[in-house]
């Protein structure tokens, strides 16, 4: 059994927006949206890999490709497969706890259906297995007869996780699972994911925009910008010494609980650009404080910059020399 749970190679996803027949007649070029542009990504067995990016980064599309909801335009996803076999391998937890559970079905009905469809356990043991699943996520057996509307957001996310685990997948894709939850409840779900990873050996792809959450939970982090992965590194290293200006800017934009100044050199101008309009050369150069002429001309590939680290920046080494601001003193001392 290899160390790799899922391998994405050269994955690209483009959407052609429909052209009217008139435009086709006059041979206008269709507007294409490049959501994902040549991504190589490995999810290792038993790890939590965080995928971080802002709007237009393509992280949601990448997740859909990994799960099999969408097919890539080019590139491969290993292992591959569709239908029931794929369902046993990869499962997903969604962002919105209020639309991810069918309001007309009881929790027990949903779980039992999955168990029976995939013949996970013999018929006689289905109920017991349902109980085991909800206990696994920290809920009592009496939830099986209840409808989703009777639960809070945090509980619903836990039920969604139970549903995902019903088919005993190898890989769990969590698409911003805590973003819609109250802060005080997020920790429950985060700790649950960590515990399940440890107990069941799950491999988890965790999509998030909240870097504090990512730092807490992930083993490795991949940063996406405009359809490309621009940096991959183990969590601690990524946050202590980022090697891509965008990563740096993301870190600097996190609001802090400690009094500390944000390094103004890395405050970005402008907006996350549109995937319809990818800049030539390094796609980050219009907003990059370190951009040089070389950056405007070349599109840097993702290269190794250290052990188990990669960065797609021509000036990755230069970044290593710019220190992150020290968090200021917490006043008074904690």
């Amino acid at each position, binding site marked *: 059994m290899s160390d790799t749970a899922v391998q994405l190679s050269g994955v690209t996803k483009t959407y052609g927006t429909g052209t009217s027949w008139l435009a086709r007649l006059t041979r206008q070029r269709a507007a294409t949206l490049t959501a994902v542009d040549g991504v190589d990504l490995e999810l290792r067995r038993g790890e939590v890999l965080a995928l971080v990016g802002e709007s237009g980064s393509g992280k949601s599309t990448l997740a859909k490709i990994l799960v099999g909801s969408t097919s890539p335009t080019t590139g491969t996803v290993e292992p591959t497969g569709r239908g029931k076999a794929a369902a046993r391998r990869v499962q997903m937890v969604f962002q919105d706890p209020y639309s991810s559970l069918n309001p007309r079905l009881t929790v027990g009905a949903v779980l039992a259906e999955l168990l029976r469809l995939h013949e996970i356990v013999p018929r006689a043991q289905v109920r017991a297995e349902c109980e085991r699943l909800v206990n696994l996520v920290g809920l009592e057996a009496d939830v099986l007869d209840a409808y989703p509307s009777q639960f809070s957001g945090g*509980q619903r996310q836990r039920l969604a996780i139970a549903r995902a685990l019903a088919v005993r997948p190898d890989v769990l894709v969590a698409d911003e699972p805590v973003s819609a939850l*109250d802060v*005080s*409840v997020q*920790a429950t779900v*985060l700790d649950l994911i960590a515990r399940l990873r440890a107990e069941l050996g799950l491999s988890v792809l965790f999509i998030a925009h909240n870097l504090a959450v990512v730092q807490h939970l992930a083993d490795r982090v991949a940063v996406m910008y405009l359809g490309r992965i621009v940096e991959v590194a183990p969590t601690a290293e990524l*946050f202590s010494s980022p090697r891509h200006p965008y990563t740096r800017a993301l870190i600097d934009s996190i609001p802090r609980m400690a009094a500390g100044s944000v390094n103004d050199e890395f*405050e970005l101008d402008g907006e996350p650009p549109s995937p319809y309009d990818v800049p030539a050369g390094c796609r980050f150069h219009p907003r990059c404080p370190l951009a040089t002429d070389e950056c405007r001309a070349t599109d840097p590939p993702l290269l190794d910059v250290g052990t188990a680290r990669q960065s797609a920046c021509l000036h990755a080494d230069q970044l290593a020399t710019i220190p992150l601001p020290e968090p200021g003193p917490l006043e008074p*001392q904690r």
Partner: protein
Amino acid sequence: MTSTQPAPFRVGIDETVPLLRVRDLSVGTSGATIVDGVSFDVAAGERTGIVGESGSGKSLTLRAIAGLLPRGVRVTGGAVEYGGTDLLTMPARRRRALMGPEIAMVFQEPMTALNPVMRVGDQIAEGPRRHLGLGKAEAADLAVQMMARTGIPDPARRARAYPHELSGGLRQRIMIAMAVSCGPRLLLCDEPTTALDVTVQLQVLKLLERLCEDTGTALVFVTHDLAVVNQTCSAVDVMYAGHVVESGPVAEVFTAPKHPYTRGLLESAPDFDRPDRELVPIPGFPPNVADRGPGCPFAPRCGYVVDTCRTQMPPLATVAPGRLAACFETDRLGEAL
């Protein structure tokens, strides 16, 4: 209007009292009370954060101050004093005249707050034309100036755009430009950065800070994000289930909280500067509006609860200089975290 000072008195402002005093404000529907006896002060030029989770009533509190409550929801008690005069008992016309020149609001979702069929420059100009009596051309110039001040590149051209042609961050800046166009003394913000990307959020927060410092505008910033409050505000009020449970300077409240809920919030949120700290979630969930019984609303989830907590509502009282908390057991929280 070219000065950066707030406009001269349009309403009689009593400068001896805090700019905004909310006293025992209650807001609700005919069936339920959602905001229950909320009190806090905002001094002129001060930046205050109101922090709470879902069901805390923080958004409704803000809307009650602005007079923008949704249908079916009314103020059921209390007072909102602006410069010494109660807004709630003011004649409606006079109160409406305040919105813009004195008090302005920034909403969470710019796409629904902006008129989709009006150019953004015209939308910004609308306020000054109405409240400051500026002519069409003057107001248009002012709008472009305001857009420049909020950091919108190429403002003269962008003023002719429609909201859907702009990105989220730009729309939020437009909304801020609209809000400050008449030079208000009080800016109310309802989760203005929650819907934005994190790098854009930083830009908008810095913009708000800068604008408020330049013009001496007071800011009331409603959010669920403690760290945003920490960076942007100097004072904070923590709300839970319709009550203010703690109040005080940001640095003190966040390092030495005096209410178990505040402490719970701090302990359950991941803190970027302390990645190894274990997260402790607050068990249970906030009560439904209809389920609030007597006693402290946090009692079912509180680790410090004693019998009195379940039967009596703790009053918001001074527990240290400049610090207010609504808890009977606040002394047991005495030590810093």
